[in-house]
């Protein structure tokens, strides 16, 4: 087809058949001879148009999280719960102390047994009040006993509290009988049976002293779940030490306590404190990096100074010092030691609970806790 010059007349018929176009250059050839610069083009030709996605499966970013926002939610328990942990522990320790002493029912231990039983009763009475106060809907407290669910530590705790309550009530009742009508036939008839039942109560008491640790362990909070093997025993040791300290303090108030009984109680308290220290060290070992909130910070200092320092080490030191002093100063030192143990126990419960709650806001802690095992 000659190139039409300017003067050529326009063709008359509007459309002939569309004239076959000049040889169509195959696309591949066109793309080559236009010296394409497209460095990205190869990907496209390889059937994968997206040059935008990462190619080599992105390695785990070290500090990956979602804007630093919490990965789990904190249980906003108020002070009632750590207070319950402490109060339940004291009641449990006191009950066990009383029950053990009652095995030999030596008259010199009567004051201690009486103190232990009354402490156990008050503890067992105050505990449910604290728990119900913390409930969102307190009027539905009885739903705690609606099911029997072994896998729920709180449900098991509720049932244990019922059992423990029963035993403390029985023990306290027995104590009242002994105090008021030591000679009556009923008391004499009930005593041996009571003593056996009280001994049986040691088991639920031990559960009350321990389960609160396991309740915390059965969560996703790294500080609690990370110390699952040691937090239970730690709470129980603390229960025993605070229990005995409470017995020591209250028995003196209720009347004279024999030297021998005092000596044996102090010895037992020493053992409990030693065990508690060991358990604390165990927990620290088990937690490793997850114990960061208790390594420093407000609750970390509270635990180290208040609980470990004043609550465990100081009483042991005071006990040693007391040994070399005359009875009067030793007695006051003993009282001080017991007070410190009691206070230290409370500080430990608050520190572990509050530090655990704060740790929920740290996603990195949770992601470390949920790394797949190597």
């Amino acid at each position: 087809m000659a190139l039409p010059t300017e003067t050529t007349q326009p063709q008359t018929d509007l459309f002939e058949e569309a004239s076959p176009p000049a040889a169509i250059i195959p696309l591949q050839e066109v793309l080559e001879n236009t010296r394409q610069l497209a460095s990205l083009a190869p990907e496209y030709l390889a059937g994968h148009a997206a040059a935008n996605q990462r190619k080599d499966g992105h390695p785990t970013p070290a500090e990956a999280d979602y804007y630093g926002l919490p990965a789990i939610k904190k249980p906003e328990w108020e002070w009632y719960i750590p207070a319950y942990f402490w109060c339940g522990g004291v009641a449990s320790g006191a009950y066990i102390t009383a029950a053990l002493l009652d095995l030999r029912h030596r008259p010199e231990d009567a004051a201690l047994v009486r103190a232990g039983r009354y402490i156990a009763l008050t503890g067992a009475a105050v505990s449910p009040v604290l728990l119900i106060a913390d409930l969102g809907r307190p009027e539905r407290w009885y739903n705690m006993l609606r099911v029997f669910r072994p896998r729920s530590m709180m449900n098991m705790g509720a049932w244990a509290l019922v059992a423990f309550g029963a035993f403390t009530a029985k023990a306290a009742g027995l104590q009242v009988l002994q105090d008021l009508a030591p000679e009556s036939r009923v008391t004499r008839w009930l005593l041996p049976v009571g003593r056996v039942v009280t001994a049986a109560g040691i088991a639920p008491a031990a559960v009350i002293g321990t389960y609160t640790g396991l309740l915390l362990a059965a969560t996703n909070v790294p500080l609690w779940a990370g110390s699952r093997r040691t937090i239970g025993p730690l709470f129980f040791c603390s229960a025993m030490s605070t229990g005995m300290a409470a017995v020591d303090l209250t028995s003196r108030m209720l009347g004279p306590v024999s030297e021998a009984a005092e000596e044996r109680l102090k010895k037992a308290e020493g053992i409990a404190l030693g065990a508690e220290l060991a358990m604390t060290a165990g927990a620290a070992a088990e937690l490793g990096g997850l114990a960061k909130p208790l390594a420093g910070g407000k609750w970390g200092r509270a635990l180290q100074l208040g609980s470990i320092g004043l609550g465990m080490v100081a009483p042991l030191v005071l006990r040693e010092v007391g040994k070399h002093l005359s009875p009067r100063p030793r007695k006051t030192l003993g009282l001080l030691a017991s007070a410190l143990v009691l206070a230290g126990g409370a500080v430990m419960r608050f520190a572990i609970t509050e530090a655990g709650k704060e740790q929920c806001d740290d996603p990195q802690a949770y992601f470390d806790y949920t790394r797949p095992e190597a």
Partner: protein
Amino acid sequence: MPGLGTSFGRGGATTAQWDLQNAQCIVIEGSSMAENHPVAYRFVMKAKERGATIIHVDPRFSRTSSLADLHVPIRPGSDIAWLGGLINYVLQNDLYFREYVIPYTNAASIVSEDFEDTEDLDGLFSGYDPEERRHQVDTWQYEGQPVPAPGYNPVQLSTQEHIPQTESLTEKPIPRDETLQHPRCVLQILKRHFARYTPEMVAKTCGIPEELFHQVARVLVENSGRERTTAWCYAVGWTQHTKGVQIIRAAAILQLLLGNIGRPGGGILALRGHATIQGSTDIPTLYDMLPTYLGQPSAQKKHEHLEEYIQTEQSPTGWWVNYPKYIVSLLKAWYGDAAREENEYCFDHLPRITGDHSQLPMTMAIHDGEIQGLFLMGQNPAVGGQHAGFIRKALASLDWMVVRDGFEHETAAFWYASPEVRRGEMDPKQIKTEVFLLPAALAGEKDGSFTNTHRLVQWHDKAVEAPGDARGEPWFMYHLGMRLRKLYAQDPEPESIRVRQLLDLTWSYPLEGERQEPVVESVLQEINGYHVTDRKPVQSFEDLQDDGSTACGGWLYCGVMPEPGVNLARNRLPDPVEGPGTHRNWGYAWPSNRRILYNRASADPDGKPWSEQKRLVWWDPEQGVWTGNDNPDFPREKAPDYRPDWSRNPRGMDAHPGTAPFIMIADGLGWLYAPSGLQDGPLPAHYEAVESPVRNPLYGQQISPTCQVYHRPENPIHAVDDPAYPYVVTSYRLTEHHTGGTMSRWIPWLAEMQPEAFVEISEELAAEKGIENGDWVTVYTARAETEMRALVTPRIQPLHLDGRTVHVVAMPWHYGYIGLAQGDVANDLCSLVTSPNISIHEAKAFTCNLRPGRRANAENTPVGHAGNGERNQRS
């Protein structure tokens, strides 16, 4: 609309959302489809799952980009340079779909010698009149043959006597050179016009790296042709520029060259805005249009009498030869028996427009006191309008304003709650405007229809009664009309035009219910049209007559109610999974339930489908009729080999051969080159936005020569490359909010999800300005200051233009000073500037500056989030 209207003949989207899943490549540009048309984006995702490549061309990396295979960051306002580059790539390498382009477009048509291109006149086309800022189209016509443009209010020949000249269309064919070698054939003109739009120029102008340009170009080319098609989706990212129409024209040219128009999985999907914005363009809320694209008579045109009006608007060839039937039927519908042949069917009752009465000119007329009263129904310009501060001040000079809305929004409360009042610039005691706030029934509380983005009319029934005094628009308009008619009935001169205009109207719709609401379905029946004698509905617009025997409120909607009481817009029957997949029993798509327009082009010149995969409509030789999965956009019995017999002066469709898919255009061909119709040129040329940080790299002409810049004291315009305003700013939408915010910022659930105004800036700009992520920043222009929170993000990248770095700033514009989620009005920053052809504003590309810290008098304005929304208490 004129962009698509001038290129293909109709202003609507050429394809449908669900058809996108048949595409092998989808380009989304000038739209953030995933954010603003999420339900339609479903089909883009379906296409992607079938292996399609999704490309998003947008200054911001938005939610749409995150799902796209390729994101192309582009400088706001430089789309024509980019699209021109693609056109140039296709033309220089002969990669256009030749067997489609030659028979179906005017590539081979020869243009007259008088035409001079922007290459010759450094950015102007021949026929430019600097005072009028308009072009005369006379020099752009085909050689020896002027041709009228389709669509409403097109720019026609200046001599007004173009009727006799265009009459020659019926005498001889338009000169063509099928070999496409003729120096003045359209294809060669295109080649010369876009020759300088090289990949390097695109990189220099748009900031798009050359590799990315080449990759997109190859993807487009490889996904066009017989077996594969590419679809384009756009919205206001393209339209809201002073050259918006030409951006759409560029895309239309590219799609015609690649042969993607009228084919399944191809086309251009204009993503419409509000729920039934397409409906409110068909049955228009526009000042310059009568229903279904008939021009509003104008005092500036030869529209004195009906005959003159028809002469000016009608086209001797193509479908618009039926113009008289449609205007006469409309007048019969409006004026009933009063419209008789003797009084030109009451043609003189139609008001004449005297100039540009669009949004911005109207606002300036209000500000200058030319307009005393305003009906504001379904708009919140105090937030959505441009230079919103100017609008709020303008409203103060009204005598009265009737606001019908579901909520008291910023516009209704301008007189006591606006920032101007808070800053003491306006004193409520001085504002004389009386505001009538009437509660409006919203969509679910009234019958009605939505016409969505692909011309689909879907009926909805009232779900619940509107509370209290809230009434719908039909009720308000009907009863207002009745009261005015009573008032005008006592007028001393009953025969004056003022009175006849109102009383001759057929204003008697059946009423229902104790609220006496007009039966809206009867309005749809009237729009569908009926035979005047027996009031039987008209089956199709082909039955309309120009002798007054038929009445029709909107010819395009003919067929929606083909029989009394039957409303096809109620149909809700989708096609089964196995096909045919055009869902013709779901709602009713105008014209005549056609789903994909220009589908004649889905068959080759001989009427056979281009390929098995892309079959849609084809010629059935035995029955001698066009058939297929969609309603053919072509005379049913016209064979592909039909050729007009010029000796018999063929008119209308007879003048089109059997291979002309674009029946609404005079020559039946896709207009790569538009000889008439548009004010700014037959071809798109890149011009900078009115406010731009760079000089126009292509031409001496900096901005569109035909746009309107309103030089007023309240409307200062930034100079080019103004150091005081160095950053390009664009505005966009959030999925969580809706336009002016009334329908989302009042809702607690939505306010909670995007509670405050913010601005997105790049990390580099933030570092330069010492701004931290989340800080307060003040974004300011010569017109206003606004404070917003800064969202520093890698999704906004600085652009490197020819060695120079230009920063882009992007901000949502939904926020206002009322509602649960509040913030400064972003539109205070915009300028009063309108585009040629349709007077659209330029909200997508202008310049600004920003500084850290809050606005000057920030203390007396409420802190961003209201926070005092009432909480719906849990039971």
